């Protein structure tokens, strides 16, 4: 109970921190939303009126308290540029980001674990080297370059996958799902590429470490089959640090997908942030950061749960 309370308190703290940091950062930006919509015919009086409309004429502290107060009511405010609530803007984007990041995460884990195991069990052999180099290389790729390359190769040249977007206009029902997956492949692939390396390398190191532990020797001494030794005895332990990394990444991935979503014209939150910076749309920006912080908090909770399932030392004490 106390544990849960602490986690929650920590989550709230994280949220508050993100809100505060971004609130002030955003307001430190040069110019104001009104200059962003500047048009040649605007007069100074008009400008002031607009500022007042946005509530930007009040002192910063008052704006901040207002914002926190609204936030407590779950109100993220209205977008400056699009006259709709920020929640609407974000909620339209969030599902896509979740689809993208979660699928990338799942694929990464599904591929990363066996590759890590392969590298660790063949440590210092050529298989290990190949996996390591590939992993590191993939991790070091620059997203936009990869994106354009993949789209050119698989989209324009081979015509296997569509260019940009998230789902076809005409697709309905099952076809819509298929179309969604079809559009998901390329952006997901880029995200997987850049994440996979980290996973495999961590898996490899922790598994090599686990394979040197006494409990692995004991399992061997019990006559357990080599495969079982790796997959049952060593892997369960090696998964613990990997889980932490996965949790950390899941949280930051949402924000980290900015480049990917922009290049692939994928309608996610990351792109909304990028656009909102350009438009100085403070409420959307802040809302997005609150959302991302919430994602991090949620990811941490998930990690804790996963940790509990994997590690009885946590579960039973």
């Amino acid at each position, binding site marked *: 109970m106390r*544990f849960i309370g*602490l986690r929650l308190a920590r989550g709230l703290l994280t949220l508050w921190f993100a809100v505060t940091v971004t609130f002030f950062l955003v307001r430190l930006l040069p110019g104001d939303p009104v200059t962003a919509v500047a048009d040649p015919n605007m007069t100074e009086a008009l400008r002031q009126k607009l500022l007042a409309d946005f509530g930007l004429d009040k002192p910063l502290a008052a704006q901040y308290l207002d914002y926190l107060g609204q936030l407590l009511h779950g109100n993220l405010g209205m977008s400056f540029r699009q006259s709709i609530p920020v929640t609407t803007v974000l909620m339209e984007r969030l599902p896509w980001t979740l689809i993208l990041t979660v699928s990338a995460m799942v694929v990464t884990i599904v591929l990363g674990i066996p590759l890590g195991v392969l590298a660790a069990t063949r440590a210092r052999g050529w298989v290990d080297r190949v996996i390591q180099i590939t992993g590191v290389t993939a991790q070091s790729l620059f997203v936009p370059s990869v994106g354009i390359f993949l789209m050119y190769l698989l989209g324009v040249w081979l015509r296997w996958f569509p260019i940009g977007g998230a789902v076809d206009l005409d697709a309905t029902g099952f076809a819509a799902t298929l179309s969604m997956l079809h559009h998901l492949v390329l952006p997901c692939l880029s995200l997987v590429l850049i994440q996979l390396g980290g996973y495999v390398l961590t898996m490899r190191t922790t598994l090599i470490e686990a394979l040197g532990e006494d409990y692995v020797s004991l399992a061997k001494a019990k006559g357990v089959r080599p495969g079982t030794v790796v997959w049952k005895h060593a892997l369960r332990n090696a998964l613990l640090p990997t889980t932490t990394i996965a949790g950390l990444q899941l949280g930051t991935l949402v924000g980290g997908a900015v480049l990917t979503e922009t290049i692939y014209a994928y309608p996610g939150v990351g792109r909304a942030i990028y656009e909102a910076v350009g438009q100085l749309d403070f409420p959307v920006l802040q809302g997005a950061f609150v959302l991302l912080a919430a994602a991090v908090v949620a990811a941490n909770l998930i990690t804790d749960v996963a940790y509990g399932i994997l590690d009885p030392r946590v579960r039973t004490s």
Partner: protein
Amino acid sequence: MPPSPDPVQKREPVLRASGLHKSYRGGMLSRGGAVRAVAGVDLELHAGETLGIVGESGCGKSTLARMLVGLERPDQGEVTFRGRPFFARGGVPRDIRRRVQMVFQDPLTSLNPRMTVHDIVAEPLRVHRLSPDARAMRERVGELLTLVGLSPDRMNRFPHEFSGGQRQRIGIARALATEPDVIVCDEPVSALDMSVQAQVVNLFAELQRTLGVALVFIAHDLAVVRHVSHRVGVMYLGRLAELGPAGQVYGAPAHPYTMALLSAAPVPKPRLRGRSRIMLAGDPPSPVAPPPGCRFHTRCWKAAPRCAEEEPVLEAVGAHYAACHFAERAASAEKGAAAL
């Protein structure tokens, strides 16, 4: 029997611990209660004397040692050096720090692997500015190394280039650098190979004889403690079960736990194999929730209902002290057992 120091008992002790308590609470997230590592220990150490402490793993020996050198601040009670309390305002006074030193269990981890032997031994000299210049410092380090039986020309090497016994000598040299009055040794030989152990034990005995420092010698090996100590304390779960002159504690133990300990210790004499031994049941209880009353009653074959309720105090039993409701009877019973 080690040479007995001069009639010490009457003189003012160099180090006195009274009513020491120390608990550790777990991290912020841990549930259970605090570990009560030391729960009420009183000790006196006289100049030139060796006080041995034995006890099983986790009974609080190291915690006691750390409090005796001022590394840890007791929750309750205090440690005084020649009558001056350790924790004045703002930490341990520098001169007391200088006078009370420590030798650690693991010779390797207690020496910084990135420092040369010279730097390690010179560290106290630097901290207390005991050497006017670098040359004097080298000379002093050389002297100290010679004193512990190491050749001074190896002082520019790193600890890992030495064997276990030699490393422990480096640690001892460091402890001697400030010319302390008291050295607390926390299991100084447990990590050593059996063929080297004796070298270090001998060194301690000799240093004490020549320099007259008072030693607190902690170990779990009964024989080693017996070998170096004038007086011996037996600890169980954070408390002293028995305390007294070595000969008496070993020869006529008053506390059942001391008896069990002595009897369980393996004897390197195959011929004595068949002897009757006291086999304790179960494991030592957790220090988080020590049993009420006498802490030993859960495993004691002599326990009576009273033991579960009333905590025995350390009181004189003949020439030494024991904390047991049945101490005297135990002492006589032991004689009977020995006769069997």
